[in-house]
């Protein structure tokens, strides 16, 4: 763990640099090789007749932007969830967000024959919101506001409920599955920027608001009495956290489908490097999450070209050894 402010600043800069390199790599590497010069040309001197320019503009820019936003969004949502529930195993999925998105997408496709990716994306977002709203309502301790334990329990119950609904619908309408694959597969490729443009600002705004709340988030780790004694409105802070998680994880799952691991592990990686202070933890998580998903997506393209392996597999493959290494090192330090 980095202890001094100087070391942390250096660490943050390293993360930023890593992210920048990952973004460039994501634009440059793929089935059709592109040089850095061509990349710059395609961005600043676009030639519609040039295949490489076209590939960069039509394919790689969108998947780079999507991976960046989704990775950052999932990681920050993970930090919020873990602080909110004081549960290190909490991840965005635990609020029922993935299950809600899944159910709405499946219901939309099977009952209302929706299949346009742009429709599915908004349905998923709506579903994530509804499920998380339900979980939040059920998670209220009578008279005391949101209870972390109740919230987690409600999340597990709502997840089970929505998943079983979805399975039932899919079993009865197997023919509709084809139109869902686009969303179910969990991927940052093939998402046109037009279709996701409406959702990306939500992630940006939510991350900015989260970064403004670092002081309150730091206090949330303490006992409720202590927090109240320090003059913080626990109920309101938790409510705001829930809304932010819905915005971040709901958008991420709506855009990219079910991508596991980032929301759970990245916060731990950031904590192992930067400690538990949210002023460092949050921005570091956003940077690491975005970089991890970008690198994973780039690697996914390069392993067995021209095929790609699912990005969720790569995030786990890349992230797990790194996480284990950090976990061991942290233990030996403390």
């Amino acid at each position: 763990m980095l202890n001094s402010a100087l070391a942390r600043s250096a660490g943050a800069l390293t993360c930023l640099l890593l992210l920048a390199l990952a973004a460039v790599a994501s634009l440059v590497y793929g089935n059709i090789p592109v040089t850095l010069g061509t990349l710059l040309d395609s961005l600043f001197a676009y030639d519609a007749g040039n295949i490489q320019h076209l590939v960069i503009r039509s394919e790689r820019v969108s998947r780079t932007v999507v991976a960046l936003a989704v990775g950052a969004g999932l990681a920050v949502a993970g930090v919020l969830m873990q602080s909110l529930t004081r549960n290190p195993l909490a991840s965005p999925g635990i609020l029922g967000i993935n299950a809600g998105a899944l159910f709405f997408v499946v219901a939309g496709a099977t009952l209302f024959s929706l299949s346009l990716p742009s429709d599915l994306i908004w349905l998923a977002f709506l579903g994530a919101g509804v499920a998380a709203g339900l979980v939040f309502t059920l998670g209220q301790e009578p008279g005391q506001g949101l209870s972390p334990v109740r919230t987690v329990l409600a999340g597990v119950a709502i997840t089970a409920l929505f998943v079983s609904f979805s399975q039932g619908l899919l079993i009865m309408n197997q023919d509709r599955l084809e139109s869902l694959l686009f969303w179910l597969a969990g991927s940052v490729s093939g998402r046109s920027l037009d279709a996701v443009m409406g959702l990306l600002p939500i992630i940006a705004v939510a991350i900015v608001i989260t970064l403004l709340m670092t002081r309150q988030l730091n206090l949330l780790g303490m006992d409720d009495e202590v927090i109240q004694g320090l003059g913080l409105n626990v109920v309101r802070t938790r409510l705001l956290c829930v809304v932010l998680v819905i915005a971040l994880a709901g958008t991420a799952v709506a855009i990219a489908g079910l991508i596991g691991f980032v929301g759970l592990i990245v916060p731990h990686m950031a904590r192992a490097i930067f400690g538990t202070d949210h002023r460092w933890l949050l921005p570091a998580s956003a940077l690491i999450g975005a970089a991890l998903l970008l690198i994973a997506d780039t690697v996914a393209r390069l392993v067995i070209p021209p095929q790609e392996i699912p990005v969720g597999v790569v995030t786990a493959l890349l992230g797990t050894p790194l996480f284990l290494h950090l976990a061991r090192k942290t233990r030996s330090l403390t």
Partner: protein
Amino acid sequence: MILLPILIYNNRAALETSDLPVLSTLRINSILLFLLIFSIGSLASGADRHAVEVRHSLGTATITDTPSRVVSLYQGASDSLAALGIQPVGMVESWTQKPIYDYLGDRLGQPRMLGMETQPDLEGIAWLQPDLIVGARYRHYEVYPLLDQIAPTVIAEDVYDFRSLLGMLAQATGRTNRAHALLDQWDARVEDFQARIREKLGDQWPMEVAILSFRGDHARIYYKGFAKQVLDELGFKAPPAHRKDTWGIKLTSQESIPAMDADAVFIFMLGDPAIQRTYENWTSHPLWENLSAVRRDQVFQVDPVTWNMGAGIIAAHRLLDDLYDHYGLEDGVSEGCILC
């Protein structure tokens, strides 16, 4: 979330002819009971005329009498039975145009439907008291021991090798003459086609062809399968990159479009709107316009039932009909065709 991938996996498998096997062995106990009852019954009626030993992919089946109650457990077997003039007592449903492909029409009579090819209804099979069951290794190797206890079972090595399947079925059902006639007919047509296309294309023959398919979220290049089997026999070549010993590949990024290139491209896909959209997305990409097959206007959309799912000799003939049409060739043999 744990069960969901399994469900999805099942569903995906259901849409293919060449994906992983999905087998239901849940009802084994009740089936064993049936087996007991039926095996006692069959002891009494051992009218042994001429025992035939049929070697198949998973062993040898001894067939003591000319089978009259045949059960078909995959699409190619149903097609081949129809070609041999046998109406099965039970069969698995088709992947599309359920329960029986339109092109097989009423050739198959009114068999009892036994569910999906990937998970046939074993109890239903036992109730039918069949005297021959036809399965495929890839689909049925796990339930083969059970099937073999119900009735003599022959298992094909590949779901798409219509030639060896026909030979095996002929041997098992005692219709070798008919099978020989069918294969002679087929060989004659193949020869006729080869002669005509060589004449038509000149030094462009043999041409390299790619077999493509589109799904809701990806595109596919097939390296093996029914269409490949027939095209190989006709003398078509695959592009060097497509000559691999695996079913094929899935492509998720349109950047990979150049991997699809060949002299000619055959595309089969189902009519789902999501699939149609994928197809439109991919085929409107400038990289697609750059493919040599596209530039030379050699892209053919073909029927997935004929080109992929049918997988028997009737489907093979229909595939050949398509090719005669595509290349504007006169069909010199089909006049006396037994099937047409």
